[in-house]
């Protein structure tokens, strides 16, 4: 008797679990897994979206190997990631620690202010920054020249455009990541800091030996998620420079978009997307290994 009851209960539990998982599972399958498999299928074809697909095996992948513009865009994506990810990590951690030491009242005001850019649609924030960056009438250049510096071209210069875009995306995302850091800093028991204080540790020492090591899990999460996001950066660049000037901000996703929707090379674009996915996948895996091993 008892056993049957237990069995039934277990069955009910399984059923409930599936019930709760169902909406997500369905959503993921229809909108993520199926398109992924379909993209791979398309990548084996020559397809311009208007006429039927022609199967060509791995020709698209072979073509990619010698596509200089593609590899240049991959290089640019890596460069973007190398600037953006460390900058975002350090800045959001820095502000999280600073804000954490503020009084509760100021803390919530500052937190809201930092989070505000995150609540703005990405396209709109890109447009706002285009006004700030305008070489002739933009606020930033007015500021620079009133301080006696030379005016900058920002988005109109091949050297400055990518960094200018990094700044905008940092401005959008720092607040959000800062809040994640703040939440896990609050999880750290106060006793540790008290003990450190008694031992005469400086604030920097306390950060290095207590806060930073105990944030490892959060750090891993933020670094991986940010890296993935920076490999798929698109909308702000599309709005602000659409890859220019002279291709200096043409990152991988933008090039994939151009191949797909401007040139209508759907098959080739899908092949590029598959490779980009593999790059991101391998990097994320490697990162995950690296961080968990250390722990």
């Amino acid at each position, binding site marked *: 008797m008892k056993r049957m009851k237990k069995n039934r209960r277990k*069955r009910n539990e*399984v*059923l409930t679990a*599936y*019930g709760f998982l*169902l909406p997500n*599972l*369905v959503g993921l*399958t*229809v909108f993520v897994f199926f398109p992924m498999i379909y993209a791979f299928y398309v990548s084996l074809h020559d397809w*311009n*979206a*208007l*006429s039927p697909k022609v199967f060509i095996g791995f020709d698209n992948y072979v073509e990619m190997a010698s596509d200089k513009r593609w590899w240049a865009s991959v290089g640019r994506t890596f460069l973007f990631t190398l600037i953006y990810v460390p900058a975002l990590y350090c800045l959001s951690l820095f502000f999280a620690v600073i804000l954490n030491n503020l009084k509760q009242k100021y803390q919530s005001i500052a937190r809201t202010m930092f989070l505000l850019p995150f609540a703005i649609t990405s396209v709109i924030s890109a447009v706002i920054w*285009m*006004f700030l*960056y*305008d*070489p*002739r*009438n933009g606020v930033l250049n007015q500021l620079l020249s009133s301080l006696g510096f030379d005016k900058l*071209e*920002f*988005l*109109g*210069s*091949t050297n400055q455009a990518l960094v200018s875009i990094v700044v905008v995306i940092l401005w959008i995302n720092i607040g959000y990541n800062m809040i994640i850091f703040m939440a896990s800093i609050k999880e750290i028991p106060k006793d540790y800091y008290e003990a450190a204080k008694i031992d005469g540790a400086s604030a920097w020492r306390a950060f290095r030996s207590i806060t930073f090591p105990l944030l490892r899990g959060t750090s891993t999460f933020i670094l991986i998620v940010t890296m993935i996001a920076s490999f798929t950066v698109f909308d702000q660049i599309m709005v602000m*420079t*659409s*890859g*220019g*000037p*002279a*291709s*200096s901000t043409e990152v991988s996703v933008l090039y994939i978009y*151009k191949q797909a*929707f*401007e*040139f*209508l090379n*759907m098959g080739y674009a899908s092949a590029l997307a598959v490779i980009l996915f593999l790059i991101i996948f391998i990097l994320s895996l490697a990162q995950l290994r690296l961080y968990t091993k250390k722990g």
Partner: protein
Amino acid sequence: MKLSKPLIVVGFVFVLIFMVGCSSESSGGESGDVVKLTFWDFHTDAEEAFFSGLVDEYNAMQDKVEIEYSTIGNATDYSNTKIPVAFANNEGPDIFMTSPGDFQKYADAGALADLSPYFKEGVKEDFLPSALEAVTVDDKILALPFELELLGLYYNKTMLEEANLEVPKTWDELLATAKELTTDEVAGLALPTDKGPYLNFIWYPFLWQNGGSVLSEDGTKSTFNTPEVAEALDIWGSFFQEGVSPSKLQIPHDDIANVGGGTAAMQILGTWAIPKLEQEFEDGDEFGLAPIPIPEGGEHATAAGGWKIAVNANSEHVEQAADFVMWAFGDDQSRPLEWATETKFAYAPRQSVIEEGKEFYSQGLRNVFTEEIYDSAIPEPKFSAEIVDAVGEALQNVMFGGMSGKEAAEIAHEKIQSILDSK
């Protein structure tokens, strides 16, 4: 057995979702005897009103065909997303609009129906030969041009007068004048900055005036490595390198508000700018218009852009769709005339329509287009998107990449030739 029940539930839900997802496909087609057609474009405001009025009128005057008009409201989304995605799913509209930058890919894919059998007698001859040539592939007329948008040099008269300058007539004068007029607040010459078909469109007059071309006459060879091309790239690049054309514009370049609002002294722009200039900015006799300056010994040339209306070759009702297109722009003069004069300002590609609107075409700045620019018009070429991109890259390289025209032309030449060879 334990798992089978949940799995069945999951499976059932999936089936349900797919059924819901797929059943929404409109059964469309005929209801009774009425043929239903879809017509998509990207227009807004007055232009949208014109087309929706046109469709209403057509629907009301006969009861065999019913057209459903819808607009996306944004030309880029329309060209790059809406239309390709619809065609990819075999749900393309029966009637749609296409631009010179996109025309070739739809033609190559066989998505455009041949309209030649549907012309009324004498109408084909009424069209400007060059306008029809621009939409003809293998003797098939694959779209109907209904507007020609020409380019000219708009300028602020007061600014030129105050600086004691003449309206530039040559490239050198254009550069020198632009330099004189450039200040911290005012750009000497506003030009487009971002890569795309529009950038090339504004540059083509410089290319043609200098005797250059992108492709050989038969379209099989790149002719981009000639000195004429390099020079046309050099002059364009010098506007940016010398700082008279801003590297970024706050107001999109296709908007006359750059000159109208006083942030630019000169701007190369199309016929479409005149109504806005008159309605929003005209302040006495403030603005002038001239043909685009030419190189020493060069010949006047301007680019004629404009959208074309096309019929989906895979439509079940090509004939009915073509009949509507011909009724709208290939029949009576009143509809094309209303479009080209009242709704916007463009040239109709039909002689009889221009004749009909003679009076209108001589009003104000329009007269400059009619008298001094119209005769030098060359339709915007229908290159594949990859060639458009290669030309755009050459322009970007001289504008921002610090390259000389010769270097940029050489790179683009190789790229274009390899695109042609792979076809």
